[in-house]
């Protein structure tokens, strides 16, 4: 089942001589449960791609469909709510809310929807993340790896259509990096979660279903690696 469809996505910064084409006619699709990695050099346009796919940044042209819904035909307010419910983000610098505990951080998107979280699901996620005994800790009381696990939990809790991870291991040592990768793979397999991850570490692509390479704004599908 096709979850994500990106059609002729272009993003241009600046004008005239300073114009930079960060994305050039990028098109691809992703199926449900697929775990894909985008690799590329610094400045190649991979973060721009992720931001446009996640609706954080507006593309110059092109379309992004999530389960057939055109992300950029929505009004900003609707897009925000759509993003909250359907897209999970994992950032390199975690972006946790320092005033909220581990558990509160994880259920934050549900709280933003003014809904009550399902305690069973919360416990399950905490268990998967190995953070049960840390549930009442503040982010400042956690290690980097633990903080990133909380961020993954936050991305998982709404069971979104798509998780976008921007260099999720960029701030972590190799042991924590591997833990985070294992978690993402587990999420992909266990919850049939579609994940699009950016990384410049080719070693991490060994556990993903598919790899894209971005070079100077052009996306090339390198196909499956795991298989």
């Amino acid at each position, binding site marked *: 089942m096709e979850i994500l469809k990106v059609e002729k996505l272009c993003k241009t910064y600046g004008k005239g001589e300073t114009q930079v084409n960060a994305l050039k006619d990028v098109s691809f699709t992703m199926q449900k449960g697929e775990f894909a990695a985008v690799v590329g050099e610094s400045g190649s346009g991979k973060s721009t791609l992720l931001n446009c796919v996640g609706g954080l*940044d507006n593309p110059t042209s092109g379309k992004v469909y999530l389960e057939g819904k055109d992300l950029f035909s929505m009004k900003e307010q609707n897009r925000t709510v759509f993003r*909250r*419910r359907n897209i999970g983000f994992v950032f390199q*610098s975690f972006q946790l809310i320092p*005033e909220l505990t581990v558990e509160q951080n994880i259920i934050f998107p549900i709280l933003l929807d003014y809904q009550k979280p399902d305690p069973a699901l919360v416990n399950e996620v905490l268990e998967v993340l190995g953070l049960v005994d840390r549930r009442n800790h503040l982010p400042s009381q956690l290690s980097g790896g633990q903080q990133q696990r909380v961020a993954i939990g936050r991305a998982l809790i709404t069971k979104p259509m798509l998780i976008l991870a921007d260099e999720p291991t960029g701030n972590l040592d190799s042991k924590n990096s591997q833990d985070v990768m294992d978690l993402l793979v587990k999420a992909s397999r266990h919850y049939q979660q579609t994940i699009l991850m950016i990384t410049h570490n080719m070693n991490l692509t060994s556990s993903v279903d598919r790899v894209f390479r971005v070079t100077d704004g052009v996306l090339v599908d390198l196909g499956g690696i795991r298989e």
Partner: protein
Amino acid sequence: MKSYLDLIPISAKVHKKQSRMTKVCIVLAVFLVTAIFSMADMEIRSQQLQAIKGYGNWHAIFTDIDEEEGAMIAARPEVNVSGWYGYVGEKAKYTVSGKPVSVAGVDNAVFESIFPTKLKEGVYPTKKEEVVLSQNAKIALAINVGDTIALEHSGVEPVRLTVVGFMEATSKMLSQDSYTLLLTTEGFRTTMPKDLYKSQFMVQLSRYCNMQKVISGITQKYQLTTKQVAQNTALLGMIGQSKDNYMLALYSTAAVLFVVVLLAGILMIASSLNSNVAQRTEFFGMMRCLGSTKKQIMRFVRLEGLQWCKSAIPIGISMGMVVVWILCAILKVLSPGYFAEMPTLGVSLIGICSGIAVGILTVLLAAKSPAKKAARVSPLTAVSGNTNSIQTTRAAADTNLFKVDISLGIHHAVASKKNFLLMVASYALSIVLFLCFSTAVDFMHHAVKPLKPWTPDLSIISSNNTCSIDRKRMETLQDNPHVKQAYGRMFAYDVPIKIDGQDKVINLISYEEHQFSWAKKYLIEGSINDVIERNNKVLVVYDSATNLHVGDTFSLNCETGQKEVTVAGLLSSSPFDREKGVETVICSEETFQQLTGKRDYTIIDIKLSNSATEEDVNVIRSLAGSNTRFSDRRVGNHEARGAFYSMALFIYGFLVIIAMITIFNIVNSVSMSVSARMKQYGAMRAIGMSDHQLVKMVAAEAVTYSVIGSLVGCILGLPLHNFLFEQMITSHWGDLWYLPLGPLGVIVAIVLITSILAVHNPAKRIHNLSIVDTISAQ
């Protein structure tokens, strides 16, 4: 770059917005202090002018001392000007051309330096047979410089005096239609019998001595009794030299206000600097990482603060001065003659120095703690690249009580105890400040009375208080183009009445249409129209001992016989003094005529049009005729108006400035708070927080500060209001303290409404912010 400190202007350029906000805080604090202290200074100067104009520029008067003692006092180094003064009032029945006069004797030095009036024409007398007269005598008695007048007294040979000049007439002289003759001390002593006056020695002391000490020194040295020593309390009070209990109470009030204003200034700057440094933890960490010592960081923060002062203090001071200039200009426009001596572009050194001192000292003091905080930043903070999450939160937000956006907003407000304390204190102080200064409004309403609408410029009064001023004279006056309004009253004093079988007396007064319309404001029961339209209906002025009520009928024992009248209305007050046990009863002219048979007036009040000149007044004076007193109240009205305007303008000015500062402070604080969390807001938006939720979160934070600030403000402000009220008002006029619901409502509403509205701009900023930029900035 020659030194690491050269980084300060560069850093200021990079952090332009934060620097601007901190500068705004310093400007506001300096403006607040400069404006309030300058205004207070100008008000004191204006009050000094008024005190000097009213009572003269003397500090002490010693009565019944001998020549030698006088000479000894005069020789004291603390004495600026001194001299003998003698006064014989109208009651002594001295006359010039049949008009009663008062006579004063004083030497030129005292007249020039101490007397409230100045010479308008001619010279001051130097010989004992020379005299200066008050200006009003010149026209009334048709005298000119060089003329000779005869000072007469029954049974005594007239004294011939040569007029050498004229002096200003005081408001008292003009309103009482009295004339004053001024002689030299020698002339006075030769002319007036010794038993008619007490010889007084007037002293003006040096501004810089301890006047109370000097006065009590003189008192002790010459063993004078308290009755022999008089002090000019009003003037001494204004120059801070009074020991009068009431003045001491006012000084303590001023001291409290001074401290509150200073605190408000300090807190505003401190909370701003605190927030500014907190936002740049990473930057200071980087500096530490690159090898800055803690001392260097502290120096950096301090110098950065002083750098802001360089432009913020002059701006704050200029703003404060401009406000004071505007107020002074308004005063001069409202009451040109009265404030003529007050400079429009006056500079208050006290205001400026306080502004500079508050600016620099507060920045240095306030920078101390952020500087320490900055110096404590670990180099690790800079290199970890994760300053945001490492930041400080000790307890988690409680998301069970409110929705998550509101919970986070409240938590943002209270999470950092120090920041919370500073913010709440600065909000609370605004409320305390407003409440404290609002006591000055009560003080003003007690101390200075505004002119009532019925206050006339001129009055023609029957000299024996009977209905003897011809009615036709009123018609002539009304036809005069320079008369705006003329209205008369007939008086029948001590008219016996019988009510419920009891004998009492009343003063019966007639009103016409203008006076009835002014009385409407004071009607507490019944109808004024009934009194105007129907005969034998009267108004009674309420008194706690009054037995008369609406509907009561009583009979008057008039010259024309027994007449019955009915009370149709009750007034809360009237412009007339009342004697104990004598009711004031007001009726229409028709009723008055029917009751008393009198048609002519006892008093005619006149309001002049703006174009009326001195000559027009003289024409009206000539119409007054014999057997009348002509009371010219223009100068007195001018003084009363001036005193009220000056006080009202300054007091309401204070309140407006405090309200403005409160508004700016709240707007700036909310804006700074949002700037400090901009990155976090970016992350929240990425995760799915809507703009509306963000606005709610910021509003919750702002409202938390303002609600707690308002509560603390009330808890601190009300007892202080009580204290100041008792010091200023209860101690003097006996009014009991009341809960100041009006001012409290105004300032709390300003605080709450401003904090909600203050969210608007930062919300717009958050909305316009690119999520990607904020996230990648981390």
